[in-house]
């Protein structure tokens, strides 16, 4: 019988390494997801520690600017994982990570796949609220598609809530565009100016606010099954009913510091800069 060239201990170590490699090759998609996510968490913790260790000022700014974990690289790995195992539940986790934490480019790709292939997954709920701040037609289409296709009650509620947020955010972005257009008219490229004008013309803040109220009311009604989200929706109903861009300002009846009575509506006919302030 042929004897080993290695002393027994070394053989044991070699066997372990081979075994470890086999395990690595056979790790489940879920384990691979956990491994990448864990690696990111470590990188993030190291970054936070490095920021804390640096002296406040230029040193710390430099650490902040240079040592941040490369989210694009992580997002790319998550997308590859999702590509390799498209039917595995871990693919959804990987795509959700890339959508919520990745750079714009990878986030877009991840969202495309999530809303094309995974609208029946319960985990897609996690991207609803974050995408509500992306004001493009595709956001609205995606959320409506999800609303129609998900079999899960909680995902439906999340999608409706996100549609409410989207409408509210869109009214605010529209107001920003009006100011951008007026403030930088000469510097704008014609194509951008055209885009701004189109968005402004094609949307109406009052309609957006009314639509937001409708979505939030729908979620607020589900207090029995979705208590936490319903409570947040109820607060949003109040906000978009009274304090959204496009709403008539609520009347204020009060008095000045000398007790002289006044109302906010006394100033109708003039532009009013209403300033809640204090000297602190």
């Amino acid at each position, binding site marked *: 019988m042929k004897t080993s060239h290695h002393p027994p201990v070394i053989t044991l170590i070699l066997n372990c390494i081979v075994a470890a490699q086999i395990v690595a090759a056979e790790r489940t998609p879920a384990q691979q997801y956990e491994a990448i996510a864990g690696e990111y968490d470590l990188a993030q913790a190291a970054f936070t520690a490095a920021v804390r260790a640096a002296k406040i000022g230029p040193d710390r700014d430099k650490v902040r600017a240079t040592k941040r974990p490369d989210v694009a690289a992580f997002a790319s790995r998550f997308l590859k994982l999702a590509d390799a195992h498209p039917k595995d539940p871990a693919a959804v986790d990987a795509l959700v990570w890339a959508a919520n934490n990745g750079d714009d480019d990878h986030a877009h790709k991840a969202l495309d796949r999530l809303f094309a292939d995974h609208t029946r997954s319960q985990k897609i709920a996690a991207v609803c609220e974050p995408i509500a701040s992306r004001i493009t037609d595709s956001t609205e289409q995606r959320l409506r598609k999800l609303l129609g296709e998900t079999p899960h009650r909680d995902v439906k509620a999340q999608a409706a809530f996100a549609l409410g947020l989207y409408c509210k955010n869109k009214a605010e972005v529209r107001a920003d565009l009006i100011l951008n257009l007026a403030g930088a008219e000469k510097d704008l490229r014609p194509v951008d100016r055209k885009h701004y004008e189109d968005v402004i013309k094609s949307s109406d803040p009052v309609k957006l606010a009314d639509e937001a109220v409708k979505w939030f009311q729908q979620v607020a009604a589900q207090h029995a099954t979705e208590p936490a989200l319903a409570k947040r929706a109820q607060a949003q109903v109040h906000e978009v009913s009274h304090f959204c861009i496009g709403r008539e300002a609520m009347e204020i009846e009060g*008095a*000045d510091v000398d007790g002289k009575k006044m109302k906010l509506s006394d*100033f109708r006919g003039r*532009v009013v800069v*209403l300033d809640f*302030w*204090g000297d602190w």
Partner: protein
Amino acid sequence: MYPSQRSLARRMQGKPVTFVGVNSDGKDRLRSTLKREQFDWPNFWDGGDTSGPIAQAWDVTGWPTIYVLDHKGVIRFKEIRGDTLELAVSLLVKEIEAEKKQP
């Protein structure tokens, strides 16, 4: 913030624009600030602290909070300061002027 508010108010003199404050300080403090800073626009006194009735009704949770209303009392812009605030105000003043020109 104070100097920029004052200078905007000065530049808008003679135009259909007004600041309206809702102040959360005690009465004495508000009186002395108005005098020291030469604020000559209307200010609601909101009960002496940040939980005053007006701030509560308006769900205000951060100070300062700014709303810009047009001449019809409609909220048109929120949370803007400095040059952007001035730009917003002049846009809304132009709307009033345009409306006056209409027969």
